[in-house]
């Protein structure tokens, strides 16, 4: 997927929405290339298990590097329906293809359910430019 087609949180997650057959929305999320670069070498990833209820803006996983640990924040309120275990077991995937095979969670959400503030690509780029690297 091209990053220009995605939406972004201020906490460096990306998300894209698809409509499911039953009318609910499926949010697929991951972390951005900018965040991955800042985190340096990842060592461990913990993802909320399918079935977990997550809340917009609240943690839904953890990303560890050698000497840092960061929360992964859910962009939406909903239920985790799939976690990308392939990425968890092969962390290189995140760096290789952060917006594709490096996705992390699929969350089922409803129209009108809570979301955090989402930025388009240009706005996210501006935010990154302002942050010290």
């Amino acid at each position: 997927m091209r990053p220009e087609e995605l939406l972004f949180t201020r906490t460096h997650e990306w998300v894209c929405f698809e409509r499911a057959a039953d009318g609910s929305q499926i949010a697929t999320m991951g972390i951005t290339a900018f965040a991955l670069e800042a985190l340096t070498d990842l060592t461990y990833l913990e993802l909320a298990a399918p079935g977990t209820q997550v809340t917009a803006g609240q943690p839904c996983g953890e990303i560890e590097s050698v000497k840092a640990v960061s929360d992964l924040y859910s962009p939406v309120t909903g239920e985790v329906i799939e976690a990308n275990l392939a990425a968890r077991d092969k962390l290189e995937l995140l760096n290789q293809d952060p917006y594709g095979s490096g996705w992390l969670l699929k969350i089922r959400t409803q129209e009108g359910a809570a979301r955090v503030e989402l930025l388009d690509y240009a706005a996210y780029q501006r935010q990154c430019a302002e942050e010290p690297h």
Partner: protein
Amino acid sequence: MRNQQATRTLFELSKPGLRGCRLPEPDVPAAALHELLPAELLADAPPPLAELAEPDVVRHFTNLSTQNMSVDTHFYPLGSCTMKYNPKRNERVAQLAGLAELHPLQPDTTVQGLLALLYELAAMLAEIAGLPAVSLQPAAGAHGELTSLLVAAAHFRRRGEQRTKVLAPDSAHGTNPASAAMAGFTAVTVQSTPQGFVDLDDLRRKLDGQVAVFMITNPNTLGMFDPQIRVIAEMVHGAGGLIYLDGANMNAILGICRPGDFGADMMHFNCHKTFSGPHGGGGPGAGPIAVSSDLAPYLPVPLIERTAEGYRLVLDRPHSIGRVRSFFGNVGVLIRAWCYLRTHGARGLREVSTQAVLNANYLLSRIQHILPVPQGNRCMHEFVASAARLKAERGVSAMDIAKRLLDYGFHAPTVYFPPIVKEALMIEPTETESKETLDAFADALHQIVQEPPELLHHAPHSTLHSRPDEVQAARHPVTSWHATRPRPASP
């Protein structure tokens, strides 16, 4: 002169049938084990430990020891850890059979000398703290923090106050918030000012009736004495909270000022730091605490009491938080602290802090123009220099400098702590170093900052190995030895 054969792991050195210790034949009737114990509890074979001859073990560990830097062999300016000289006289005293070979359940009447020593130690710590009640129980600084917070929790519970928060500055040791969480509190961070002092506005915002304790390190982790401490104490006390002093930096203020006098209600000492108990490759420590008389009833058991008949352990204290460890505190470390205090006396302790502060300021003055110290040109017993400028200009990081120092025969300072200083190098020389050593260290830094970045990125160059691959270690943890690993070829 490296002996690589002897420092292969114990398991690679192991050879079936070898053994290092033989015990006497039984002098009482023997029997087959299955006649004495149920089969379902008996092991089929002894545990698969290494099998070695005694000389193997000696050569192995002796050679391993030479692969360490230590206070006995090197300058070790590891900030926040107070790596001072460990007096040999203290070791000899602690190993006296009359002090070392005492069982914790012996009757009090058979340990009067030790109880007298520990009682005197507690009294000396109370005087240094300016707080009257001391518990010698905690095993280390972090254990002292936890114990104190449990004391505070018991105090508020008894008063019927629901206080759920513990505040600590962003410059605090990680143990502070971790101890708060373990004691059942919510940890809340208070911002520091650019000078590294507590941001009073932020403290005021976060101070409410929910706050049980404000944990403060003073001098703080930047090596600065926060002159607002009395104002802070008044604010916290005004809100009904308590002040906890993290005593990690007591080496700066012995006999100069006392936590109890500047507003602390509780504190811990790090005997392995301030009072020269050796650090033992990571412990044991001892983290006795001192508290105000209001909090004394909650101290853990046992305490030592002096009576007309002699000293005795007191276990029955109705408001006590209970026990925090199996037996009496880390006595071996406490004995060494007692030796240290008895060696110095009041004037000697004040001189310790004076010389520690002199050494730190001198070293600061020698290196601040190459490694700026953001907090200014004065410090207490330690200071935090920053390699940020070097990093920006030449790509050389604090870690590069730390690693290169090893090549020059110096242990590295603490790096990347506290997190509020970029590219931090936290340097604590202690009082037990000479001007010549400090000069040699400063000279080494002067040379290092001029060396090619490429050389520094790959430092150290003279140690047995270069930087370990920490990513590999964390991604695929190997935490014990397994035979599947190929054996290295014999040299």
